[in-house]
């Protein structure tokens, strides 16, 4: 009986403490990050190249209903695997630029820990130097989509750090008569991991 009264007395306090007041305005943030990316599957990016490393910038707009939009720009750098030059071509220093536009949803796990999921549309540009010509470049454009997740930890006030994982699906337009060869040189799945710093305002 006494315990029941005690619980009754405490419960409003518990209930009210959980119901924190949220601001009703749209929050925006920008971030910088370092990236590592590994293409997987049976395709030229996965078999003929070393893993990609790079850096990126991004921005988000988050609404009070926990849905938001965002954009990410990433630049990746790689090298052709030794012994795979016959398959990749007489090309060097591959670079990939990825622009991701996405919808995002935020889950609040605790006061300073958040999880965000994102899904969206991606644009890719793969640039290679012709070894034979030095400065001239081979440019390939591709489109695709991506799915990802982000774990965010609040340091203090507007500053946050995060770890993000993303799976990008790459659909290029390289042509070959043989369907298997065409698939090998135009489709890929890119798994990337990033570590970043984000500032809210």
């Amino acid at each position, binding site marked *: 009986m006494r315990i029941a009264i005690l619980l009754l007395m405490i419960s409003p306090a518990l209930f009210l403490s959980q119901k924190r007041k949220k601001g009703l305005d749209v929050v925006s943030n920008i971030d910088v990050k370092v990236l590592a990316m590994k293409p997987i599957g049976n395709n030229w990016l996965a078999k003929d190249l070393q893993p990609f490393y790079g850096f990126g910038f991004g921005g988000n707009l988050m609404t009070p209903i926990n849905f938001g939009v965002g954009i990410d720009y990433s630049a990746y750098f790689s090298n052709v695997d030794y012994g795979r030059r016959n398959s990749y071509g007489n090309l060097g220093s591959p670079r990939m630029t990825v622009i991701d536009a996405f919808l995002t949803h935020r889950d609040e796990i605790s006061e300073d820990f958040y999880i965000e999921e994102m899904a969206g549309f991606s644009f890719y540009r793969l640039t290679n130097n012709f070894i034979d010509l030095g400065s001239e470049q081979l440019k390939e454009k591709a489109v695709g989509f991506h799915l990802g997740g982000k774990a965010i930890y609040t340091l203090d006030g507007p500053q946050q750090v995060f770890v993000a994982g993303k799976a990008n699906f790459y659909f290029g337009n390289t042509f070959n008569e*043989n369907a298997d060869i065409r698939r090998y040189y135009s489709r890929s799945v890119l798994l990337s991991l990033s570590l970043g710093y984000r500032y809210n305002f």
Partner: protein
Amino acid sequence: MKFRTVTGLLFMYFVLIMSGCRSDSTDNPRAYVEGQMVAATVDFNKIRHKIISNNIVTAQTALQAGGSFTLSGPISNDGFSLTSTEKIKSFKAEKSGLTISADSMQINVPKGITYLKFIEIVLRK
């Protein structure tokens, strides 16, 4: 109402993605050549093969131990040629229209062919 907007946006994304997934254009051709060399006296380690398109070497390789090779590189829309470092006597391929050049050093591939498998390429030596 807000959820309906989100669903609508997702649907738009999906439509855009699906329209972007087609890859039936020939804008960005890439050649893929594989084959087998036959020679009596030449050391296979000294032979190099190249894919040349528009006077650019876009792929280059040495032969594997048994004389087989695989070569791939981006090409222009005007066809390409396969160049060897030794003179070619004859070849057998699955496609027609290929010619040996006057100096016997290369096989010219007409435009439109991007995948090529040589059953054998016989060298003069």
